[in-house]
């Protein structure tokens, strides 16, 4: 196709998106749209997969049968989400094994929160409640994604995440109404996770300058997402008697949340593999993959 034709077709495509048009897997799409979309979904898939690792140790240590079951189910959901998302990426042209190769070689990224260690049962509650809450804010916005296969999966993902938040909040509530030591477990975990949570939605790039918004992949800018999260969850945190130690954190007269500016350079370093637990987790994944390599090589290679 001639370069001019491509360009005008891309312009038509953009108009189509701006009018609310949806795209399916076999439709024509501009290279830039496909590339950005694929990278975005791949990062999402990687995040679901890596997100499993901080939590799975706690299945063994869960203090009741119900918690053991709920936590296993939560992690299972996340693996399921990774499966759905890698399928979307595969249908956009990049097979799962290539995604995994890139992830383990450190060539691709996953969300900041999965690069930090989990230290106590308090972390389990805080992660399931607040990390999943932060995620669901972004994920609700993705329900309107122009790429329909992704939007459809987001529906299932959002539904399942709502269970996770319930579970997380329940864990936290049991702890804050338990012994003083149990209350302290939550407070201490919150102190460690608040920074990463504030960074979670990304740099405050204006929506008008965000290519993901322009291509109608994201329908909400980063700062809007962060504000929505703070609006929803700061009151819920404070009402439990927990403290947030940012002296600047407050909702101003215009209804906008103010906070100490996060270190954006730190975020950049973390998502590309320089977080405190990044390498340990990638190593773990590499070892696990090596362990099961024979299965892919032999057992799956022979179709029934």
């Amino acid at each position, binding site marked *: 196709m001639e370069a001019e034709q491509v360009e005008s077709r891309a312009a038509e495509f953009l108009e189509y998106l701006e009018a609310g048009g949806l795209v399916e897997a076999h439709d024509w799409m501009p290279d830039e749209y496909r590339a950005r979309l694929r990278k975005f979904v791949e990062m999402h898939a990687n995040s679901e*997969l890596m997100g*499993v*690792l901080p939590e*799975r140790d706690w*299945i*063994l*240590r*869960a*203090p*009741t*049968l119900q*918690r*053991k*079951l709920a936590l*296993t*189910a939560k*992690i*299972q959901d996340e*693996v*399921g989400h*990774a*499966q759905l998302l*890698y399928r979307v990426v595969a249908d956009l042209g990049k097979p*799962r094994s290539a995604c995994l190769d890139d992830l383990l070689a450190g060539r691709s990224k996953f969300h900041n929160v999965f690069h930090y260690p989990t230290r106590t*049962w308090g972390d389990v509650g805080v992660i399931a409640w607040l990390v999943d809450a932060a995620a669901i804010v972004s994920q609700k916005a993705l329900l309107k994604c122009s790429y329909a296969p992704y939007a459809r999966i987001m529906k299932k993902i959002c539904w399942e995440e709502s269970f996770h938040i319930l579970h997380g909040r329940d*864990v936290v509530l*049991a*702890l804050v*109404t*338990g*012994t003083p*030591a*149990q209350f302290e477990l939550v407070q201490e975990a919150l102190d460690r996770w608040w920074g990463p949570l504030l960074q979670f939605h990304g740099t405050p790039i204006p929506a008008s300058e965000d290519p993901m918004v322009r291509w109608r992949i994201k329908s909400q800018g980063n700062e809007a997402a962060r504000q929505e999260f703070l609006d929803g969850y700061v009151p819920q945190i404070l009402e439990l008697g927990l403290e947030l130690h940012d002296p600047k954190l407050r909702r101003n007269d215009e209804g906008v949340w103010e906070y100490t500016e996060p270190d954006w350079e730190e975020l950049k370093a973390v998502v590309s593999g320089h977080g405190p637990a990044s390498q340990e987790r990638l190593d773990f*994944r590499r070892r*696990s993959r090596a*362990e*099961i390599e*024979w*299965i*892919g*090589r*032999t*057992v*799956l*290679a*022979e179709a029934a």
Partner: protein
Amino acid sequence: MPERSRADLLLELADDELVIGWRNSEWTGIAPFLEEDVAFSSIAQNEIGHARALYELAAEELGSTADELAFDRSPGDYRCAPLVELRRLEWAWTVARHWLYELADELRLERLKASGDPAVAGLAAKMDREETYHRLHADMWVTRLLSVREGRLRLDEALDGLWPFALGVLDEELRPELRRRAEARLGRELPDVDPVARGDHVGELAELWEEMTSVRRSAPAGAQW
């Protein structure tokens, strides 16, 4: 059947289901591929769910709660079979253990469904219905591994290695039938060995118990979680 109380029988089953459910849940997030990860995790959850139901039944009789029975006994008081205690195994060994355990459990449940005790018989029937899918899954993997050379080598080694432990899951009188069914399905003989029976704790349970109860023990007894 050797003389044991109803509570002891229930605890034996519950401990087996709890520990194997644990071991299987250790594959969550790192199974051979994502679809298998999701499926195997459901199996693990079902097993822990069975354990919970069995503990609840025992708890009624013993004046306790399911969680107390699951967590608050000392390692020496658990009645699980050594087969389930072995730590997370390599995948071919996991498949072998899964298949052998399900085969033994099927025999055991057949017995219990015919029990004169309606609560036990009822629970056994419910468990058996769920286990149908576990058996299907295990059988599918056995078939697939046996159909390729490297898979067959690994699985055969695992089955032979775990066979004495499999025998130890059941009472003496059920072992010949277990052997008959396993050999019929595999089309070969299994080693002539002594069973590794209950009570011969293989040393892995104590370590498991330490980690499993670490959070729970960090608060006083009766604390809520």
